[in-house]
């Protein structure tokens, strides 16, 4: 299970803006939040690698009678806990015509219950100096608090209460819908690169709901209402569709006891059907989309391929794709960077990524920004050559070793951050993986061979399974009406 370093999430508040569309752009909100944190200080998350066996925390996993799964990740360095509730529901589970409801509901979950009305939960978290947030992806929705360990039970009581006790009125639903529309403006409508990202994803998925933006299509968001939110809530928010992840200074016995006393009392309120989504047919056409916008001052291109995820792949395939992305486009010594930016400089920047964690078939991406005298078509062809070369001739042992080192190092570095670990397990367990698959991931990465990587390139980097998006400047003057 790959580390969710590139989680496609939407947060209730921008604590990070995930790579919804343009993986190589850094969001302003990241910069800002660092400054905000800074009257105190800056800092970015964790890193590095050690041999897989070493220092891996002893992760426990059990189930309550009502079906709630519980994962406990010990981290005794400080008397702090990260308490996360994950629901196995995301944007890909939305009914047709209601795109955005999973994310909208995530916002509305902060509006209160009969027992704890009007934001009392958030007020308590703020008063004790805790941190909280929530996020939505295609496959899951999550809520978390980080607090000192003596407050863990209180958090569990609040979270258990809002699992089935949400109360919504139009008075709070309607302003929040405007908040979400502004979020859509910030993330997408104001950003031509993000708009192209939505188009590429929509074109890639012919049948599967992964083609819908997590935040939803704007005309549908505008019509979402209280009844839609409650219907979705009642269908999916139930202990038998949730995973509780607790990382920090607490033992499994204590968590078990606290979980029984809080979540254990929440009845199953729904039987959740198996998550069977419409699947992709054979893809037969090389597709391109072009988004023209007068505000494009720097053209670029992004391509996505339809590929297996860690859940749908045969053994070893997903790990090989992970290594392939690293070798092709991870950093300034990657194949694409050396060939296209350094040796034959047609590009200013290039990269590759693989979104391994997903319930259904997922995406592998490459992107690039051309030099000023190079067209997007020329860059596109040059990228094709690099990919074809890997498919034909494979990768070197040195490249393989470097990529493995990097991926395994990331796992060690992740152990420096309990929140990162909690996210890793939570996203895996809500995307079809098991605890064991997460803990053995570094071993599986270590077993990938150069042949596996070449075969992954041959099999999956087939342009008929891809969409290439071009971002270009709109040159026809538009009539301005405001």
């Amino acid at each position, binding site marked *: 299970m790959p580390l969710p370093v590139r989680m496609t999430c939407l947060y209730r508040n921008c604590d990070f803006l995930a790579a919804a569309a343009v993986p190589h752009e850094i969001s302003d909100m990241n910069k800002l939040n660092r*400054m905000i944190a800074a009257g105190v200080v800056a800092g970015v998350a964790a890193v590095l690698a050690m041999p897989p066996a070493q220092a891996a925390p002893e992760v426990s996993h059990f189930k309550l009678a009502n079906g709630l799964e519980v994962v406990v990740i010990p981290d005794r*360095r400080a008397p702090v806990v990260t308490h996360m509730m994950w629901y196995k529901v995301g944007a890909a589970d939305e009914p047709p015509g209601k795109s955005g409801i999973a994310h909208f509901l995530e916002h509305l979950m902060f509006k209160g219950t009969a027992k704890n009305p009007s934001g009392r939960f958030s007020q308590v978290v703020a008063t004790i100096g805790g941190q909280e947030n929530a996020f939505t992806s295609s496959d899951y929705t999550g809520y978390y608090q980080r607090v000192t360990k003596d407050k863990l039970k209180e958090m569990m009581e609040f979270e258990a209460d809002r699992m089935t006790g949400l109360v919504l009125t139009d008075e709070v639903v309607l302003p929040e819908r405007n908040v979400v529309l502004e979020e859509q403006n910030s993330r997408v409508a104001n950003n031509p690169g993000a708009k192209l990202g939505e188009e590429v994803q929509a074109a890639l998925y012919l049948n599967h709901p992964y083609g819908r933006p997590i935040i939803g299509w704007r005309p549908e968001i505008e019509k979402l209402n209280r009844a839609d939110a409650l219907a979705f809530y009642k269908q999916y928010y139930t202990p038998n569709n949730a995973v509780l992840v607790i990382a920090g200074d607490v033992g499994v016995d204590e968590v078990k006891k606290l979980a029984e006393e809080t979540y254990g009392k929440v009845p199953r309120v729904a039987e959740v059907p198996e998550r069977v989504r419409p699947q992709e047919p054979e893809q037969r056409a090389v597709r391109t989309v072009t988004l023209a916008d007068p505000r494009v*001052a720097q053209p670029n291109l992004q391509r996505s391929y339809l590929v297996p995820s860690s859940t749908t792949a045969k053994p070893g395939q997903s790990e090989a794709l992970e290594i392939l992305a690293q070798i092709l486009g991870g950093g300034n010594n990657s194949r694409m960077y050396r060939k296209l930016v350094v040796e034959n400089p047609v590009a200013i920047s290039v990269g590759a990524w693989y979104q391994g964690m997903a319930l259904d078939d997922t995406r592998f991406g490459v992107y690039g920004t051309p030099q000023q005298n190079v067209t997007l078509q020329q860059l596109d062809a040059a990228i094709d050559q690099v990919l074809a070369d890997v498919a034909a001739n494979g990768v070197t042992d040195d490249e393989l070793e470097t990529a493995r080192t990097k991926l395994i190092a990331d796992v060690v570095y992740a152990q420096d951050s309990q929140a990162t670990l909690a996210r890793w397990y939570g996203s895996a367990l809500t995307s079809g993986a098991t605890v064991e698959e997460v803990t053995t991931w570094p071993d599986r990465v270590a077993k990938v061979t150069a042949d596996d990587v070449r075969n992954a390139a041959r099999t999956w980097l087939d342009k008929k399974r891809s969409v290439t998006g071009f971002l270009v400047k709109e040159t026809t003057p538009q009539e301005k009406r405001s």
Partner: protein
Amino acid sequence: MMSFAPRVFLLAAASLALALPAQAAAKIERVVSPGGIEAWLVSDSSVPLIAINFAFRGGTNQDPAEKPGAAYMAAAMMDEGAGDLDAKAFQGRLERNAVEMSFSAQRDQMRGSLKVLRDRKDEGFDLLRLALTSPRFDQDAMERVRAQMLSALRRETTNPSDIGSRLWWRTAFPEHPYGRPTNGTLESVPLLTRDDLRDYTRRVFARDRLKIAVVGDIDAKTLGPVLDRIFGALPTKAELQPVPSAKMDAVGKRLFVPLDVPQAVVNFGGIGIPRKDPDFIPAYIVNHILGGGSFSSRLYREVREKRGLAYSVYSYLLPLDVTALFMGGTQTRADKADETVGLIESEIRRLAESGPSDEELEKSKSYLKGSYALNFDTSTKIASLLVQIQLDDLGIDYIDRRNGLIEAVTLADVKRVAKRLLDGGILVTVVGRPQQDKAAKQGG
């Protein structure tokens, strides 16, 4: 008190308990190398990694007036080859050893960080030493980085956030280095030469302006010689260009830039309170109440929660070396920009005039005390915080004292400081579509 003994091998300092809930076991030690280089250390072997964070005073404020972007480019070039290693060889060594090295040019300082696995630490230390003491600034690497900087600058020309932020700083500090963009301009970046970068690193990378913090699986005894190995060959004294003190201009102005985007971007800011001013901590609380973190600030409630005008609205204190600011921003629907700015201004005025309530003060203190510990959840964050405390000259016991400083603030303090901080007016920039009435006036 700890006695600081330069040139004595190591361990000058009694250890100090990080009184945070979140690193209760950890101690901050002051380590002085045989060569006299000081670092603050939190030794912790629970994860096999070492994080080093450091800062040299003198950031983009050292850029020549006609060449903004020099320090920024130097930072971007630090992993593009050093010593005998060209960019490819240098990055190959970083990658093979999973070393993470980064540099960031800020207005008043250059920040750097290194993260290494314990078992590869020597490789990491050597690469950092090479980067600091003999960066190559090869022409081909410079041209690559220059192209990347220009590409980003082109993108900024049509990005409402960048347009707004640049306009704000240019207007607030027209004659001062703070008014210049830290990442340069489309005009200045083509002019930058290897000599400009060399001049910057030669003047700034020196031991007397260096602050270091180390967190992770290394003890004080081992760290001492490591500090000399990494930083020992740097010149003793920096040659910084003095930066004149700066007073913000254009307070009370509101500037508008038309741009055809669905959402208007608002930046605002006014005169703040210096980090060393006794009123800084009360001001920090006042800002928290107005627009600080958590989902409970006045701006969050009024602008987002009640009216749904924005997804994000915030304010923060930005104390710099030669000025202090109070800043904020939001993004809102084009047709609601005026209403939103008006609402923010009225909330600022209301807090300036009436001050916070007793309940707001108590809740904020409680939040700020409790949340401090949560900032210390990774080695890198702790190291970064310890460097900031050194830059701010707050003392090695600051973490211990900090919550007491918050606790001591009274309602009279925050009322007085709210007035001082918020009564001076703000400079506002708005980038977006003109609203109907304005458009009509412009004949559009």
